[in-house]
């Protein structure tokens, strides 16, 4: 039963992903990729448990390293995406700033 439940999540999330991303215009493809980098840093959630739980020393160390790399992605990904998206201006906005 558990396998079926996982398969459900897999299939639905994959279809949802395709539907969502297909609507992103070409002009935003670079921010989309860096934003995706940030979201793939979601491994941080799993890494927290490895680094903080009472397990072998090796688990803690591997978890700690995973926390570091996932945090780079989360923080760096969101910040650089925000920086990029701040630059995208419409005609209206860019004439306001002049």
């Amino acid at each position, binding site marked *: 039963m558990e396998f079926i439940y996982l398969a459900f999540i897999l299939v639905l999330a994959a279809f949802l992903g395709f539907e*969502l991303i297909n609507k992103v215009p070409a002009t935003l493809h670079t921010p989309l990729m860096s934003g995706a980098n940030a979201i793939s*840093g979601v491994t941080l959630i799993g890494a927290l*448990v490895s680094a903080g739980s009472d397990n072998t020393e090796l688990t803690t160390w591997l978890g700690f390293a995973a926390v570091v790399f996932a945090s780079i992605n989360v923080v760096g990904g969101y910040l650089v995406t925000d920086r990029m998206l701040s630059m995208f*201006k419409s005609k209206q906005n860019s004439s306001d700033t002049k």
Partner: protein
Amino acid sequence: MDTVLIVNFSYVIAAIFFIVGLKLLSHPATAKRGNLVSAVGMFIAVVVTLIRQDILSYEWIAAGIVLGGAIGAWLAKRVEMTEMPELVSLFNGFGGLASLLLGLSSLTISDASDLHVALLVIAYFSILIGGITFSGSIVAWGKLGGTMPSRALIFPGMRWLYALIILGALALVVVVATQPFDMKWFYIAIGLALVFGILATIPIGGADMPVVISLLNSYSGIAATAAGIAIQNNILIVAGLLVGASGIILTQIMCKAMNRSLMNILLSGFSKPIEQGAKIEGEIKALSAEDAFYVLEAAQSVVVIPGYGMAVAQAQHAVKELQSLLEANGAEVAYAIHPVAGRMPGHMNVLLAEADVPYEQLYEMDAINPRMDSFDVAIIIGANDVVNPAAKEMKGSPIYGMPIIEAHRARNVFVLKRSASAGFAGVDNPLFFKDNTRMVFGDAKDTLNTVIREFGD
């Protein structure tokens, strides 16, 4: 209340935030808010995870987040927009590495009898995909940044080595599933994955990089999904798949824009260069930047077609300055962006956004081609293959069939280029020999600045 329930509920909330965030990314006006929504979702998931009862100590967690966060923030602040492909590659690699480490750590828990076969196999896959993503991305990062030669590197027997590694990786699946649990199989898997990632990326040339970055982007998501299944965490599965889908779609768009299959691109380093089908007739006519100015001054409509050369010359600000002068002079200015211009999807758009070009003035290939005849001048800055009419006219050409921006149909074509040499694909460009084409040789930025000065006088 049950903490497990609270934690899992927070993951549902986080997934909703990720999805709404991606939805808002469908328009430039709402994209910034979308990124923020996504970040809030991540924040909620991380903070609520910390209340889990199996998390006992916080020192390592705090140290890891502070260290990783500081590195990430530093990278995000100091990166130049022209270096975005390198940064995204690096992030792809870190994503893969984090999944590899997570997959590995799921095997090291003190009570190894908890590990059943399905978990071992899926942990094996998260290690494998994570490793390939990591080493492949580091090679891509090196190629893009110039620490490695960007041309395709191949050596004899490479195909056999490929086949050997794939067979080895498949054999290991069987070993992991049938033999008693032993960490050494997983260490071998790491080795295989790292070597395979390197081998898969070095035969790919600079111009094909948009495909490779997109593909590695999707691998980093799929690796996160595999790690999520290994540790049975839904938010990793869902978020990883969103990223995986995004990368796959971008890969498809890039392949379509080059009229090549993914396999063809991944193995292109192995194919022999194709003989040119027909001879190009005509001669190259050069024009000075000063003379280009007189034509531009009289032009009513101008289309700018940027390529990777604009990024290399850091010419985006000079382009914008010229645009303002042309507009003040009463001309209409449009930008035509080919999907594979630059080194990653959307590369040109970000550079022009940095230079304050409004996004309404950037047109996709299919939107601009029908009205190409109406432009007085097409200025090509550091682009080559994406405007090569051989793709339409010469059957024998290696790029035959690739959709191009049909710059040759504009009344005048100015090509800003260092020399008349072939582009990255190594294909001669008949555009340079057309009657309506003038080559303006020199550094693109210097040329633009000369034209800009002429406008001032």
